[in-house]
């Protein structure tokens, strides 16, 4: 607790998560496709991610590619100068989304051992510092957190059209408290809103997210990130982990707290 809070308050970890829906393909839409390859599922704040036979890591400026086809013996394949102040990495299909303090870098991993930078999808003028981002199909959701040194007056959930991935266009914005990590299952989006809990949105109409409800726990913890996993929403909170049943997607019910 004591080390967590200052780290977040001061550094204001700009969290960037990009999540793409798989459109109508329900068979894989509820879980990370990476799991099918033998890997697990991390949160939207991760710096490590496994895709197929490769472990990708980010540290500030560098994207590293480790071959883990023999999982006990990683071998460093490549170090790519990726950008600046990279904080997070998120895989989707044949792409990696790297979140930095000011921009989202998109890499193609068509050749998994040799990531190629495609674009800096979301310009710093559109999405400023301290901004978590989410996306679905042709839509990106960004939570712009404006407390601390990042400027701005209100935090929002912004909705972008990313049909042209190099030129996102803002379509909508909704007020939120103090957003951190986020995740989705099917047509439901879960946004960690720190001390306010988890905000649940219906995103069946992707450009018009509808706020359904806020969920929190008795102990009033801060909510930092989520991993939707099967029918369970795994939440990283300031007290440890809290599990919610999300069989009914829009109505998370408390299962258990682990601290």
């Amino acid at each position, binding site marked *: *607790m*004591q*080390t*967590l809070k*200052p*780290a977040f*308050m*001061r*550094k204001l970890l700009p969290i960037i998560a990009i999540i793409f829906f798989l459109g109508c393909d329900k068979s894989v839409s509820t879980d990370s496709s990476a799991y099918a*390859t*033998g*890997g*697990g*599922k*991390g*949160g939207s*704040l*991760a*710096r*490590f*991610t*496994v895709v197929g036979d490769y*472990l990708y*890591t980010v*540290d*500030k*400026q*560098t994207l*590293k590619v*480790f071959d*883990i086809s023999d*999982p*006990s*013996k*990683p071998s*460093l394949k490549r170090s790519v100068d990726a950008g600046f102040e990279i904080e997070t990495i998120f895989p989707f299909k044949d792409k990696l989304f790297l979140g930095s303090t000011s921009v989202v870098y998109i890499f193609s991993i068509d050749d998994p051992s040799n990531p190629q930078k495609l674009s800096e999808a979301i310009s710093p003028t559109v999405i400023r510092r301290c901004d978590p981002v989410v996306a679905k199909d042709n839509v990106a959701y960004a939570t712009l957190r404006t407390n601390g040194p990042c400027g701005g007056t209100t935090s929002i959930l912004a909705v972008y059209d990313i049909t042209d991935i190099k030129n996102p266009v803002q379509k909508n914005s909704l007020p939120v408290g103090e957003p951190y990590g986020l995740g989705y299952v099917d047509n439901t989006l879960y946004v960690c809103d720190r001390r306010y809990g988890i905000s649940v949105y219906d995103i069946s109409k992707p450009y018009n997210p509808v706020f359904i409800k806020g969920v929190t726990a008795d102990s009033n913890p801060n909510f*930092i*990130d989520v*991993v939707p*996993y099967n029918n*369970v929403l*795994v*939440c*990283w*909170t*300031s*007290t*440890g*982990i809290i*599990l919610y*049943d999300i069989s009914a997607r829009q109505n998370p019910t408390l*299962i*258990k707290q*682990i*601290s």
Partner: protein
Amino acid sequence: MRYIYLLLTVLLFSCDPQWRDNSSFMAYEPIYISKEEANSIGPRAARQTLAPGKIYAYGNYLFQVEQHQGIHIIDNSVPQQAHKISFLNVPAASELAVKDGFLYTNNLDDLVVFDISDINSPRLVNRMENAFPEISQDYPPVNGAYFKCVDPSKGVVVGWEEKLVENPKCRR
């Protein structure tokens, strides 16, 4: 009136830490662990979560980083009865990922690999030294911040804490 000017002067100067010799203000202080501790890696008894970090789901298990210290291993086969199995002591760990029964994490700036195919006895099977020099904790996470200079005799720096520090001499 003279006192008011004096007070104003004091207030003004107090805003700029550079003028505040031998005084305390908010700055960064290194969190140390001993060198012996830094090399102490492996499974331990389950323990309470005090500084929760990143989360990861794999098969029937959940993992949560205990910041700067290691990884809680949680049996989630029945979420209603989810419970900690053990604690994997990995000093300065902050990240993790899992594939095919192997867990990847960082032991400060080394990449380390554990065989967790037997979840009850994780085994360190590989280490790639200095894989993440950027994770190195030589400086606080914020540019331009004042901080208490690192004293290597105190051990290895695994993180930084923002707190009231008496006359921090280093800045970056």
